């Protein structure tokens, strides 16, 4: 931390960090990330080598005839069902699943992405709508605020995801299966953070602003729409990012106990049943990509919405 060691110097250079070329900006921000990611990749290869070595010696190489270190290394990188697949094995499996099978085939990862993503998105939309509605009611009703809010806040400290099997059983006895139970689980996981954030957001306008609306004789509806809602947006979007990520976890967990055959969660589970490690890893990579895509989409909407509001974004 240079600025701590030499605060006086830092003070003496006002505006020192303005005007950088793209290359300088990459060297400042991008290069460290690239170095970190390359280190992770290297560590992954080392781990694959170390972890697979005993298995490779036992299953692939002929220990009586002897083997060179080079042969051992090559064997660890190309094993079937290795303990730790090397990055390129995962990449090849990932690529082949996308290109060699039609999209509606269960061997194609995109098929599972569609199944999981669909229930996540449905649940996300429903949970957000429910959270918005309830937060509006809570802000306008002292009774609801006092009776419900402590429970909703407390739910943040409780592993609510553990209720997922119960939801599956209840909806199962009611005759629902497939998308509905997964969407319901994603829904209630999205619901809690959205409600908590929106109650805080709708309350964020200061007294002076609410009083101004009052002097304009604005109705409750107008002051909600014109003042409270816009003020709550910066609170809403971080909660949506949290909610969509939680909803994805919920949808994946919901695919575990039902014996589901489709979806990223089911793909992980079948992979672990049959010891298909490479399949597990590519499903893992795919769910990470799905999570990042969902969060990035929310962030994109956030930027588009908040850009029109100058000053906040």
């Amino acid at each position, binding site marked *: *931390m240079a600025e*701590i*060691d030499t*605060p*006086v110097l830092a003070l003496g250079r006002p505006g020192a960090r303005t005007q950088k070329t793209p290359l300088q900006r990459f060297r400042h*921000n991008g*290069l*460290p*990330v*690239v*170095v*970190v*990611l390359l280190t992770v990749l290297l560590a992954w290869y080392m781990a694959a080598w170390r972890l697979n070595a005993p298995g490779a010696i036992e299953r692939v190489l002929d220990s009586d005839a002897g083997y060179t270190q080079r042969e051992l290394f090559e064997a660890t990188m190309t094993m079937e069902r290795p*303990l730790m697949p090397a990055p390129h094995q995962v990449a090849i499996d990932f690529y082949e699943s996308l290109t060699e099978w039609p999209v509606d085939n269960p061997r194609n990862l995109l098929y599972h992405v569609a199944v999981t993503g669909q229930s996540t998105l449905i649940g996300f939309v429903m949970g957000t709508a429910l959270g918005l509605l309830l937060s509006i009611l809570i802000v306008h009703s*002292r*009774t609801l*605020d*006092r*009776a*419900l*809010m*402590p*429970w909703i806040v*407390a739910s943040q*400290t*409780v*592993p609510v*995801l*553990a209720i997922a*099997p*119960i939801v599956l*059983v*209840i909806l199962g*006895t009611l005759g629902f299966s497939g998308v509905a139970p997964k969407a319901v689980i994603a829904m209630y996981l999205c619901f809690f953070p959205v409600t908590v954030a929106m109650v805080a957001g709708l309350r964020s306008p200061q007294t002076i602003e609410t009083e101004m609306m009052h002097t304009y004789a604005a109705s409750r509806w107008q002051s909600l729409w014109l003042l409270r809602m816009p003020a709550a947006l910066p609170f809403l979007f971080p909660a949506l*990012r*949290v909610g969509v*990520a939680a909803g*994805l*976890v919920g949808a*994946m*967990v919901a695919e*575990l*106990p039902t014996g589901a055959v489709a979806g*990223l*969660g089911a793909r*992980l*589970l079948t*992979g*672990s049943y049959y*010891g298909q*490690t490479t399949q*597990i*890893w590519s*499903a*893992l990579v795919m769910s*990470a990509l799905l*999570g*990042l895509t969902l*969060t*990035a989409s929310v962030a994109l909407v956030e930027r588009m919405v908040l850009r029109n509001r100058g000053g906040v974004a």
Partner: protein
Amino acid sequence: MSDVVNAWLQAGASPLFWPAIVLLAALAGFSIVRTAALEGRWAGSFTAAVFGLWVLFFWEVLVRCLDVSRVFLPAPSFVLASMAEHAPKLWGDFVQTVGKAVLIGWALGCGLGFCVAVAIDRMPFLQRGLLPVASLTSAIPLVAVAPIAVMWFGFEWPSKAAVVVLMTFFPMLVSTLAGLKAAGKLERELMYSYAASYSRTLVALRLPSALPHIFNALKVNATLALIGAIVAEFFGSPTSGLGFRISTEAARMNMPLVWGAIVVAAVTGSGAYALLVALERRAAFWHPSIRGK
């Protein structure tokens, strides 16, 4: 026992049942509205408690009188009875999941995150590299590594602890890094003018002012650790553990015990949170965010 059950069912069948329920609901609504209007420090929690008790009451009465299937929704008294009956089992699950996987994984994950953050405090290059990557992990369903953890560390608790370490490490790293930057410029320059060394500044100024951030991560991680351990047990586990209990008893339609295991998990989660809040008040009593309360 069956006399009691019959009495409940007769009450449910009587023509006065629905009028009585409507009357009770009106009473409940009235009592909640009245308590919500109270002023005072504990009035908010009091209303929530009244509301919760009424919910439990109607849950019990409606389930009993209308003979709702236990698979669908067990009455709270069934859940309590099941918890009492299976207390040794649930205690074993608690020790297995919370005592071993959660506690050890949480301590290791938070400790590692903290140490790495302090270690790279003087390396802006590594910070700029790690911070974006660490922030992105919050969007990734990390708990999905559970099958791999099971493959590497076996069915017992170490595999669950490994998942918990992974899930708690990044929030702690990000929060501690943010906390180390939280000390004000004025205070830092004061330390500089005292010619305080780097480590002295760290210990006397920057770590204390990072405490609220660190405690926030500890609290968030407590919940994350519980979720991680329970969900990891859904993927495969030995014959005990809260997640194992929930998934196997749900498959056997023994819903009272499933609810019982969830009650244990919920109480653990809120208890851990309350404990951390109390600790924070003692450790960071001087901080404005706590002084005001």
